[in-house]
């Protein structure tokens, strides 16, 4: 690795200052106005900070649990309080800490690593972040009044529905459900970011390995979260309006909830683990001073894990009496998923074998991760075996297993990442001495806490018990666990102290302090608001190791987009496969709109918890207005310029439309995500059919027949036709034809759904009598809601095209609206054919 040594030897002269136009464009607003900032570097840092806040808050709950269980028969917490504490511990750690902080890290790190100034949708990121901060705080705060959810983080029905009266579980359904939506906002952001805003030459086979992991993770979130969101909606509708989706006395099935929950819940583990593995795969080569061995194999492992992990969900339901062969399928898939994980571990091992370790704090955390995670993986194979699981399911053995996998697999890599990337954030190094202390405290504390739980579990201690008698032999082990948890907490405290003090007293970092090879280290420290000074050309996985002079060249502005003469925020859009430069993407300026929309969205969900529907409707309307205002000012088209020089003789356009554009891709992602939710609804319908004796059940009257549904279907199909033609008209510069076509689509769509809903209502088809009627209603209302949303979009396009605002275009709005409309109508047609023909078919 001679070029690595060479990189070490380079002492660059101070780079020339960035041109004033560029600095001005990316300058963050001052004072309170800083909250307007949408730059991912800023939002990402806040996002990570919020995630850490929830780690501490969830950790406090964990300490309360451990204190309660330290002694047999302890009465520190009542049963009621204990149930809330453990429910919120799980909920906070999973939904408010683990997933968001991993998304936060990617939002913060990816632009730097990809060589983008920023990801393509900074305002969506910002909006998602504010929703997360407000919604998460709202959900968590419920525990201060002992009103927190108390049915476990998995919220099993009917304990969480008919047998839970207070608002406790509404906090979960509306608070957490809403955060999941913000998670999806980040999915759109990072997916399109990775595919579209890379450095030139960063083709698909030169993508930083971390970006591959995030790509897979984002796809998994996009596929796994929507069914859960759908489940949340169904359960909330059951609680609020008595539609019996899960009520066994009215034909529903509580297991449907478990399917929807675990279809998300198991991939969730990998959603948390894969980004962490990406961090490890990035950090490890630096401290071995050698490239990651087996890049293709690691990519394979990440992708395969992503897919296979969706074949595991039932392994949380081994004890529910599902057919044995079906269990075996899931057991087999659980075994199969360990193969890619094994490949990954061996790639790391091979990397270690081919390098020489530099023992710094991040490497300690990575090694701690490997040790703990491998143990967790072994117990994972054990619980994948159905008979073994029957025994240890819902015991402390599983508690031990999951904490080995999650804390080992995610928290240790996260801390490695903190120690590794902090210089990029603050320009200063964290303390090696405190870092190692924190590591040893956390490592020892962790093992002392959770190793004994394996034994407690095998001794038969079930989970979620408030206390236990003294004579079962569980007391000493529990006391040891509790003491260990205090040590673990102390380790985290040491880190927090280290971080707080380093901001003032930490050693100033030199550029690329770890002599790393990935692009983020090419920037000046701390990384400036502008992000990368000029968008470089890369020719490998480790651009700095390939070309030790790269950082200076970037700083000199030798590459693309070194300036912003018009003072706009810009980045390059490159081809998704070969990363050729294709367009200059104009990014939005700071704005209050995302923050305000976050506030109104929070109000919408917050007041819904107390079933204050009028207020919720008003807040939702306000959110809509804010978002439309924001959309109105997007799609900036600079006047007078069509193609401009971006450097090195390359001329690029400011504006493109069609399947190349980032907006089109974002809508495709959104439709795919939405399709997963709709898939969950279809599954719910079919699943409920399999558990019902008759379909439709006895005594149900009304509904849609082929004739009435057919009329509605024809109207909607025609509307879809009109909407699909609209972009063609617009592209041919026939503005009024486009407006007319969207107008027709809107009218036909409105007529179609009004007709269907009115008929359904008139036929006396009552959604509260049976799960069947509830599902049929939902199958119609769900896509109808999509069309209603589509009508707002068509009206928006029509108004914008009619008004022709100066300097703004509407092409993306038209294209994406047509896509959305087509998809909504497709859903409706599928729904109609199923609700009409399926009962006849069976």
């Amino acid at each position: 690795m001679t070029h690595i040594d060479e990189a070490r030897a380079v002492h660059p002269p101070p780079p020339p200052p960035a041109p004033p136009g560029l600095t001005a464009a990316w300058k963050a607003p001052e004072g309170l106005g800083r909250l307007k900032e949408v730059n991912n570097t800023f939002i990402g840092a806040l996002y990570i900070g919020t995630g850490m806040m929830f780690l501490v808050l969830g950790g406090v709950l964990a300490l309360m649990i451990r204190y309660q269980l330290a002694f047999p028969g302890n009465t520190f917490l009542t049963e009621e309080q204990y149930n809330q504490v453990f429910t919120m511990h799980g909920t906070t750690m999973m939904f408010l800490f683990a997933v968001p902080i991993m998304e936060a890290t990617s939002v913060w790190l990816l632009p730097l690593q990809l060589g983008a100034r920023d990801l393509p949708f900074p305002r969506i990121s910002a909006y998602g972040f504010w929703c997360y901060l407000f919604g998460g705080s709202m959900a968590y705060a419920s525990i201060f009044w002992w009103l927190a959810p108390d049915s476990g983080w998995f919220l099993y029905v009917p304990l969480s529905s008919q047998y839970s009266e207070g608002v406790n579980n509404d906090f979960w359904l509306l608070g957490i459900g809403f955060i999941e939506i913000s998670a999806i906002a980040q999915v759109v952001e990072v997916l399109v970011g990775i595919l579209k805003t890379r450095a030139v030459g960063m083709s698909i086979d030169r993508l930083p390995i971390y970006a591959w992991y995030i790509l897979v993770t984002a796809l998994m979130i996009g596929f796994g979260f929507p069914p859960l969101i759908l489940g949340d909606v169904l359960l909330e509708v059951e609680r609020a309006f008595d539609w019996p989706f899960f009520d066994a006395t009215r034909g529903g099935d509580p297991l449907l909830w478990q399917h929807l929950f675990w279809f998300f819940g198991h991939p969730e583990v990998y959603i948390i683990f894969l980004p962490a593995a990406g961090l490890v795969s990035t950090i490890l080569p630096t401290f071995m001073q050698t490239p990651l061995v087996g890049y293709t194999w690691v990519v394979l492992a990440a992708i395969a894990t992503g897919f296979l992990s969706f074949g595991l969900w039932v392994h949380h339901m081994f004890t529910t009496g599902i057919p044995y062969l079906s269990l075996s399928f899931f057991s087999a898939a659980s075994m199969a998923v360990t193969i890619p994980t094994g490949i990954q571990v061996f790639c790391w091992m091979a990397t270690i074998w081919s390098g020489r370790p530099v023992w710094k704090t991040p490497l300690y955390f990575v090694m701690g991760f490997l040790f703990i995670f491998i143990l967790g993986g072994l117990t994972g194979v054990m619980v994948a075996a159905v008979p073994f699981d029957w025994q240890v399911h819902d015991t402390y053995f599983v508690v031990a297993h999951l904490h080995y996998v999650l804390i080992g697999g995610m928290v240790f890599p996260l801390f490695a990442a903190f120690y590794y990337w902090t210089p990029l954030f603050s320009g200063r190094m964290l303390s090696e001495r405190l870092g190692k202390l924190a590591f040893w405290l956390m490592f020892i504390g962790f093992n002392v806490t959770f190793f004994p739980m394996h034994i407690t579990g095998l001794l038969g201690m079930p989970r979620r018990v408030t206390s236990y008698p003294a004579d079962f032999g569980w007391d000493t082990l529990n006391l040891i666990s509790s003491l260990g948890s205090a040590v673990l907490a102390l380790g985290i405290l040491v880190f927090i102290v280290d971080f707080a003090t380093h901001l003032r007293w930490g050693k100033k970092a030199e550029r690329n302090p770890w002599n790393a090879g990935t692009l983020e280290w090419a920037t000046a420290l701390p990384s400036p608001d502008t992000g990368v000074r000029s968008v470089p050309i890369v020719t490998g996985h480790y651009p700095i190791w390939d070309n030790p002079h790269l950082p200076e060249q970037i700083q000199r502005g030798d590459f693309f987009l070194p300036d912003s003469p018009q003072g706009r925020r810009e980045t390059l859009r490159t081809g998704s496969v070969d990363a050729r430069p294709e367009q200059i993407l104009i990014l939005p300026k700071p704005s209050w709109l995302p923050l305000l929309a976050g506030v109104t969205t929070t109000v919408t969900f917050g007041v819904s918890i107390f079933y204050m529907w009028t207020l919720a409707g008003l807040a939702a309307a306000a959110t809509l207005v804010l978002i439309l205002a924001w959309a109105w000012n997007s799609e900036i088209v600079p006047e007078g310029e069509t193609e401009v020089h971006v450097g090195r003789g390359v001329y690029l356009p400011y504006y493109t439309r069609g399947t190349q554009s980032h907006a089109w891709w974002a809508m495709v992602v959104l439709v795919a995500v939405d399709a997963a939710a709709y898939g969950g609804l279809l599954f719910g319908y079919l699943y409920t059919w399999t558990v019902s004796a008759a379909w439709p059940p006895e005594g149900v009257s009304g509904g849609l027949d082929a004739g009435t549904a057919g009329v509605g279907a024809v109207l909607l199909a025609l509307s879809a036709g009109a909407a699909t033609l609209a972009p063609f008209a617009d592209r041919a510069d026939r503005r009024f034809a486009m407006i007319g076509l969207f107008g027709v689509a809107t009218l036909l769509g409105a007529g179609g759904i009004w007709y269907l809903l009115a008929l359904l209502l008139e036929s006396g088809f009552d959604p509260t009598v049976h799960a069947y009627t509830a599902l049929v209603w939902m199958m119609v209302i769900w896509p109808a809601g999509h069309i209603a949303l589509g009508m707002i979009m068509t009206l928006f396009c029509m108004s914008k095209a009619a008004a022709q605002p100066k300097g703004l275009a509407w092409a993306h709005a038209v294209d994406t609206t047509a896509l959305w409309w087509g998809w909504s109508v497709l859903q409706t047609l599928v729904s109609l054919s199923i609700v009409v023909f399926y009962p006849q078919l069976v």
Partner: protein
Amino acid sequence: MAMFAFGLFMPERTKGIPPIKLIVFGGVAFPVVVLTALSVYTAAVGGKVDLGRNARAEGREPVRVNVDGVMWWWEVEYPQADGSTVKSANEIHVPAGRPVEIHLTTRDVIHSFWVPTLHGKMDLIPGRTNRITIQMDEPGVVRGQCAEFCGLQHTLMSFWVVAHPPDEFDAWIEAQRRPAAEPATPELVRGRDAFLASGCGSCHQIRGIAEGSANAGGEIGPDLTHIGSRLSLGAATLPNGIGPLSGWIAGSQQIKPGNRMPSYHHLDGETLTALAAYLESLK
């Protein structure tokens, strides 16, 4: 892990090995072989765990017991050959050495039936009947508990499995089948009258007292016809006996907060003792 240490601490030794070989052999071949074996073995064991299927295959018909989970106790029914059933609670009596097929249902939320020393878990799910077959080889008593979080008093939802010598099991069933014993002393009579007068019967049943009275046929709480013969009270919360019984009646909300039985703390001491003594006499 040893391999990691090898790479970390003896870097010069590992340089000669092509990394791709390590990945292919260590990361692919080895796990595939181990997992295939494990998978086959798991499936084979899994097939055997179903005692009921095995017993039937050997021509031994299992004893049938119905267990209904209720927040937070267990109702146990023994269906008899003549179509009648014998009801009890929080204890499952079985003949030693014979497979017992338990039909699991729930009256409210999801519970999970688990006797750690006998078998894995099986959930009780609304709208479904799940089955599990257990067998105790020797006479004795083991503890079981609810293993799926089921709300406030999930912690205090345990039960006992009591295995009788095979020849004594039928006698036990016969004894359980009989209606409650008539009160033999004035104190016990007073206790019975207190039972009826305090409205206990709207939730609990004692077969044989005040037949036909609306005050003695409740089905919300456990059947108390032979409560005196049970090992414990409140789903294995307290030991049985006159003291714990009166404590439970007077303060069940203090002992097991949130359970469905109100505390009868307004009963005077003598009535309470008489009531407890009466219940204790129902062997």
